[in-house]
């Protein structure tokens, strides 16, 4: 063995050791079957497949809209790699379930009054076909925020309402509160996303107008068709009176001040209905005999997927909920519309915690695969998209297979993995993942000392950095509590304005191609239904 080969070999082994020890994954490894011929053949086959990909023009009986809240393209890429690495692959070559869909387009996500959008305005665009302002729930841009009188005359009918009107079954599933902006925009109308229960409504509001009522109440009083068939997520406190002890969290109560117990009303007003709040009750639901299912599994948002096993009452995964929802909705021979949101991808990013965002994205992908497995793609359109992105980046020049959560190990001049971490101008290693802003700023805050931050971190007072960047050499950046570094100190990381992807499969999925306004998604779904 020549000296050159020897040194490369040592470098490779050392790189492996660093990657394995510090990050839990093996870096610098390419799949054994990756040959030049394989790349060529795969590329050619993809084009052949695309030639053959049908552009089904028949109507869809069912439509499922999956929304990964805050799941920008960098999140999809990082989650794809993480999922692959968790399955002992190099990672980059992996595909999330929806990345196998034949049609992809880009969605322009701005709100009518904001370059970088919020979830209320974006979901309104997707559900009504009309872009609107941030903070508004299924009302148009002529509405004045927090003014429910102006909202009343500017309401927009949602696709879910239309589906009910046409006799289809409908469902809403989310890991966020059901009253949160994204799910709310499918069934409610109002000038303020934060009016989730009646205590949020300003005194003197004209409650005879639906747009002056809280979002939880609007779900229970949903006037279209025979009522929503499936509503599952978090947000129990928004539905229960303040005198009602929460069944899961001792010492906690509902937040409604009007005394109404909305789950009880759900049971009283809807036939063959059920209400569940924990895993055991969820498991006991028989979809064959249940026509209307309300599931409220947390007082606020449901757990992150990573934390779900530790939940007090136990709660279903997004995949579990998706499966149960489809089982119930599929009973309707006229078809169904279902919206499924992975709501906490967004929250993980806001907290500057990539681990939780990415593991929730992986669970989102599993839920989509479950749906694909359960429906007939000849009569069911499935669209997967995000409402907006986050300021989340995948940076540096990590070698192939480098831990996506780890520190960058680059390649040397020959293209082989380096023996040590890549370093910045200060001589310090850095992670592949990072945020442009957020709680991961490394100056001291009023809650954590200068240096890398741990989740959860809500610093509302920051100091300037005095020690330069932290030395991450001995820090396990793959730890689920690690907060990736942020350049700009903010108590909460922000959304980003770039386009998000729309992945489609099924009847008329090809109608969303190219770069389109976000409200086009509604029109694709509507045309798929043949309306």
């Amino acid at each position, binding site marked *: 063995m020549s000296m050159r080969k020897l040194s490369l070999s040592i470098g490779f082994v050392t790189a492996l050791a660093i990657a394995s020890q510090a990050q839990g994954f093996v870096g610098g490894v390419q799949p054994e079957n990756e040959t030049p011929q394989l790349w060529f053949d795969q590329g050619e086959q993809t084009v052949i497949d695309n030639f053959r990909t049908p552009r089904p023009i028949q109507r869809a009986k069912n439509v499922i809209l999956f929304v990964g809240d805050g799941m920008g393209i960098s999140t999809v890429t990082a989650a794809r790699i993480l999922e692959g690495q968790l399955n002992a692959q190099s990672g980059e070559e992996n595909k999330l379930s929806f990345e196998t869909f034949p049609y992809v387009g880009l969605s322009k996500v701005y709100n009518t009054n904001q370059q970088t959008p919020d979830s209320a305005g974006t979901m309104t665009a997707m559900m009504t076909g009309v872009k609107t302002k941030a903070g508004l729930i299924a009302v148009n841009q002529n509405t004045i925020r927090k003014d429910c009188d102006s909202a009343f005359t500017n309401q927009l009918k949602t696709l879910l309402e239309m589906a009910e009107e046409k006799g289809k079954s409908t469902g809403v599933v989310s890991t966020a509160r059901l009253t949160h902006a994204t799910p709310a925009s499918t069934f409610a109308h109002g000038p303020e996303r934060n009016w989730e229960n009646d205590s949020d409504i300003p005194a003197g509001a004209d409650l005879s107008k639906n747009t002056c009522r809280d979002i939880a109440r609007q779900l229970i009083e949903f006037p279209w068709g025979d009522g929503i068939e499936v509503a599952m997520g978090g947000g129990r406190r928004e539905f229960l009176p303040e005198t009602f002890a929460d069944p899961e*969290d*001792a*010492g906690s109560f509902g937040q409604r001040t009007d005394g109404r117990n909305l789950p009880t009303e759900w049971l009283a007003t809807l036939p063959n209905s059920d209400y569940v709040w924990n895993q055991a009750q969820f498991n006991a639901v028989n979809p064959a005999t249940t026509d209307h299912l309300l599931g409220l599994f*947390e007082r606020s*948002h449901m757990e992150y997927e990573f934390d779900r096993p530790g*939940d007090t009452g136990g709660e279903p995964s997004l995949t579990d909920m998706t499966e149960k929802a489809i089982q119930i909705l599929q009973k309707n021979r006229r078809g169904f519309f279902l919206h499924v949101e992975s709501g906490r991808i967004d*929250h993980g990013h806001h907290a500057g915690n990539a681990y939780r965002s990415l593991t929730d994205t992986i669970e989102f992908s599993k839920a989509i695969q479950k749906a694909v497995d359960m429906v007939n793609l000849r009569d069911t359109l499935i669209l997967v998209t995000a409402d907006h992105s986050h300021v989340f980046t995948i940076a540096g020049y990590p070698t192939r297979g480098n831990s996506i959560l780890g520190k960058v190990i680059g390649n040397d001049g020959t293209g082989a993995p380096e023996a040590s971490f890549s370093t910045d101008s200060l001589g310090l290693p850095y992670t592949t993942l990072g945020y442009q802003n957020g709680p991961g700023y490394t100056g001291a805050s*009023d809650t954590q000392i200068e240096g890398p931050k741990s989740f*959860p971190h809500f610093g*509302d007072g920051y100091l300037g950095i005095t020690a330069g960047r932290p030395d991450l050499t001995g820090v396990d950046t793959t730890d689920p509590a690690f907060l990736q570094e942020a350049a700009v100190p903010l108590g909460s990381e922000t959304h980003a304005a770039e386009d998000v992807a729309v992945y489609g499969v099924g009847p008329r999925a090809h109608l969303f191609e190219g770069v389109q306004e976000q409200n086009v998604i509604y029109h694709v779904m509507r045309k798929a239904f043949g309306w």
Partner: protein
Amino acid sequence: MKIFSWKMLFSALISISISLLLLELTVQAEQKTAKEFPSLVAQFESTIIQKGPKDTTQTGSWYFLRSPGRAELKDVQGYGGELWKKEADGQIYYTRLFHKHKQAIEYFPGDLLALETKVDWIKINQMIEDELIQGKLKHLGQVTHEGRQGERYEGEMDGVKIELIWLKDKRLPLKYAQYHWDKSITLKLKQIWTGDEAPVQHTDVKDYSRNDFSDIGDMEADPFMKHLAQQSLGHHHGH
């Protein structure tokens, strides 16, 4: 409208030391079943002396309120505080309080679970790790400190010299001091109340606008949250 004053930022800085003493979110696993903690209100004074070419001193004054299943900090100026609650099912909730603005930020157990470590309920209630008085520090006998009799301890933990005068019956420090290489942090008990005469009471968060920690990022249109998230670099840090 200016949401935060210089004083509030200064108080927040003082809370760094309190956070280090009380609320280290990478706290160790709870080592033993919680014992009874007598209900009381105490006033503490904290002092941080930062060594340098010219030493800088920062002081803060805090109320500590303790009742069954509940421990709370309030700065005496009434700007902010923190509340820990332990419910009957053992779940622990953490709330940050902004009294001047009647705002509460609630951390759910799921947020705290994400730390992968249990919150040290004993430390929260007695302000120091129980291990310090269970053998980690050397017991040097009784001492009278500012008119009160306490147990004196000294020792070192993680390279930091520690002095403690422990008020055994109240399960609180009369004095607790850490001597780091670059700074010293001292906490002194100034006053204690065990009845209704206490100058402050537990905060009733029902009177506050409550928001989840996880929702802050989606509340950019809320003026308070916006200012909270936009805190600038700390050039006001007490020089």
